[in-house]
């Protein structure tokens, strides 16, 4: 063990001490007895010690999923051990790369030639396709209840009343852009390669896959984003240069625009009564009868689910479907109960052979 560092007084002294940092990071048994002893001997230094621990923990930050590191590291080591054996892999790799490149270029030529010919043959053919890809769909909720909208990528939006959403029919681009007027609760399919952006008149919310609520009615000064799961970046206005604001579960940002100035405030845990039902719902099913699970879904997504009560009466569901989009929830429940589903508007029909 290092020489005792008894000249530690301010939190800063602790922080600069390598021995102390090692203890907070690894919490080894040897170190534990040292610091236990230290705190017993110098109880007056406890506040500084505690403060320094808290500071270090904040600097360290979140450290998700440590256990799997060992497994993945082992896999990488195995890969290096095996793949990088005695034989020289370089020349073969190089050759394969060249062959692939030639193939790609060749295909490219063929493709552009074919494209050119078909254009000559009848360019009208290409037009409708291009149009269809860029075709916009607008869904408006004029009813008094929420309206479920399933997006082309499988994500779902619960549209509040007097709100509307606009998106392209095929989300083939590099980003998934949707435009919202009013309020919607989003459950986004995870796809790190394609960020999902919700644009409103006052703010833009950007995610890779999570669930959250956005509220921004045109003509109102106030806008709001509340996060249920995952991380969300909020940008104000269309100014991409401005630093995005990161929001975490149960955090909310309110934004008020006055005289063209934007005031934003982040608040912590959303109080239970303020959170609307679906945000508070964990969708955590443990041997739940399928009829009950469907009832929960019907309630939150304002849909009607039809199924054969007699056949599926004995089926149960065990799953945590906290931030899965609606389609994904239905798909997973069907998978678990060996059934299939069909959706027409707000009507969902489930058919299955039932459970033993």
């Amino acid at each position: 063990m290092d020489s005792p560092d008894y000249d530690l007084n301010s939190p800063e002294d602790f922080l600069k001490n390598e021995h102390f940092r090692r203890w907070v990071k690894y919490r080894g048994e040897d170190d534990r007895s040292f610091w236990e002893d230290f705190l017993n001997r110098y109880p007056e230094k406890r506040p500084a010690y505690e403060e320094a621990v808290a500071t270090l923990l904040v600097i360290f930050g979140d450290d998700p999923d440590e256990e799997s590191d060992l497994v993945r590291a082992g896999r990488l080591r195995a890969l290096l051990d095996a793949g990088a054996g005695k034989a020289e892999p370089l020349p073969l790799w190089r050759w394969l790369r060249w062959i692939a490149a030639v193939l790609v270029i060749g295909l490219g030529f063929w493709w552009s030639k074919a494209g050119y010919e078909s254009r000559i043959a009848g360019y009208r053919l290409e037009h409708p396709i291009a149009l269809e890809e860029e075709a916009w769909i607008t869904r408006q909720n004029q009813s008094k209840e929420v309206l479920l909208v399933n997006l082309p990528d499988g994500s779902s939006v619960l549209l509040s009343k007097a709100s509307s959403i606009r998106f392209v029919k095929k989300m083939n681009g590099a980003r998934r852009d949707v435009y919202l007027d009013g309020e919607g609760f989003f459950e986004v399919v995870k796809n790190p390669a394609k960020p999902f952006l919700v644009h409103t008149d006052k703010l833009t919310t950007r995610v890779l896959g999570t669930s959250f609520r956005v509220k921004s009615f045109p003509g109102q000064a106030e806008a709001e984003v509340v996060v249920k799961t995952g991380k969300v970046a909020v940008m104000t206005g269309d100014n991409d240069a401005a630093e995005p604001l990161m929001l975490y579960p149960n955090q909310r940002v309110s934004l008020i625009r006055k005289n063209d100035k934007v005031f934003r405030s982040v608040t912590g845990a959303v109080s239970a009564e303020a959170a609307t039902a679906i945000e508070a719902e964990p969708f955590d099913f443990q041997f739940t009868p399928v009829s009950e699970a469907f009832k929960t879904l019907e309630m939150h997504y304002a849909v009607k689910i039809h199924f054969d009560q007699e056949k599926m009466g004995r089926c149960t569901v065990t799953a945590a479907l906290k931030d899965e989009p609606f389609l994904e929830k239905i798909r997973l429940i069907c998978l678990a109960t060996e059934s299939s589903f069909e959706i027409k508007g707000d009507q969902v029909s489930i058919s299955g052979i039932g459970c033993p």
Partner: protein
Amino acid sequence: MENLDRTTDDSALWLAYRNGDNAALGVLAERYYGALRRYGMKFLVDESIVEDCIQDLFLDLWQNRERISQTPSVKFYLFKAIRHSILGHLRYQQRFTNEESLDWDTSLPETFNAESLLIEQETLNGLVAQMHAQMEALPKREREALFLRYYENMSVADISGLMGVNRQSVSNFLQKGMTRIRTKWFVTMVLNLFFF
């Protein structure tokens, strides 16, 4: 070179790897996997991307072993490489245009095991929340410097090389972070004087 194992130091492993020992690179990969992933994830990149970057890094190292030179710090080399490839990914995604647009994850774990740190749970939760709010105001790059200095134990010189800023700026970053703690500490002291 059967005598290479988990206790062999970095530079010996690096030398062995450069001489064609794949097991030596494997040991290094295993040694730094967790640290590299943790660091990569701080840029708010998806986990699978970070994992791909790490894997590519080591496979590239193996492929190019004849062109790689000896390095004074293997850890610095690996961190610099992973930072570079993650920034490249962000640039491709058009999420990175300048240093200011570069993210840093400042979130905290859901729970802390206070007992393992010899502190009462409530006390620790309170202090962490205060300190978190306090440090939220720091720019992201300063948070990165603090992390590299105090979590990864890197020298100011290495941090400046890694982040591509001069040493004086790194010292300033660290100093600013410290000032925050000191202000906080001062307030606590004054409060203690009043109440006890």
